[in-house]
């Protein structure tokens, strides 16, 4: 799993590539979790465009960030879900609590226009 993160003001963008499972969730914990814990960070845009596989461990990691940010009044936005990944995320009920966008730009626009914040 390759992970890069970028801070845009109070918005954290995390881009994941590869398979998110019990092996690679470790990288998520090391690279994404501490960034969401920075003071001020409320919104996480999770770009899963290059994620080809996810299972319940990956779902657990995303949900963990959602719960953490929700307490701070924040949100998690999902970007670029491939069909197999989307199926799992949907079945787990995540799409009911996290909006989904086709690109980072669209997600950023929504936040900018204050619909989500």
């Amino acid at each position, binding site marked *: 799993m390759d992970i890069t993160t970028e801070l845009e003001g109070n918005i954290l963008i995390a881009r994941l590539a590869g398979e998110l*499972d019990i*092996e690679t969730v470790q990288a998520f914990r090391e690279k994404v979790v501490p960034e969401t814990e920075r003071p001020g960070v409320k919104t996480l845009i999770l770009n899963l465009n290059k994620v080809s596989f996810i299972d319940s461990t990956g779902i657990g990691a995303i949900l963990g960030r959602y719960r953490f940010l929700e307490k701070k009044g924040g949100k998690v936005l999902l970007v670029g879900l491939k069909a197999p990944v989307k199926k*799992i995320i949907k079945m787990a009920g995540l799409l009911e609590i996290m909006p989904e966008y086709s690109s980072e730009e669209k997600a950023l626009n929504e936040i900018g226009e204050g619909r989500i914040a």
Partner: protein
Amino acid sequence: MGNHAHISMLSRSNNVGLARLAAASFASELDFTLNELEEIKVAVSEAVTNCIIHAYPLEEGIIEIDMRIEGEELIIVVEDKGVGIEDVEAVLQPNYSTKEEHMGLGLAFIDSFMDRFELSSEPGKGTIVQMYKTPEKLKNRKEAIS
């Protein structure tokens, strides 16, 4: 005679990918769609992950993965000699987990993605998950004929 392959491996996180890939490769002999192969990958991933987290929480153990093709059916059996399950009925409930930070989604995914599955376990002895799946295409064909 149908195809048969068996994997024994240590209960390490970095072996889950191997199990999943091997299962999808084995299954591809049958006429599964890419979508169905992805479902098989998820089911195997969940069963193997459960062995790592639940069956062998403290020390590494062996996970056995048996893969067979019988007729047009794929049969995958994941077995551990770990802690076992006290109340099998309880863990089969959706969203049930004995670990606080877990969500109880694993068995639910297996249930959704395989045609059927059986869970048998004896506390202190270990757990066996048997999973069955036939390609949808074939089921449709059979229905069309009958």
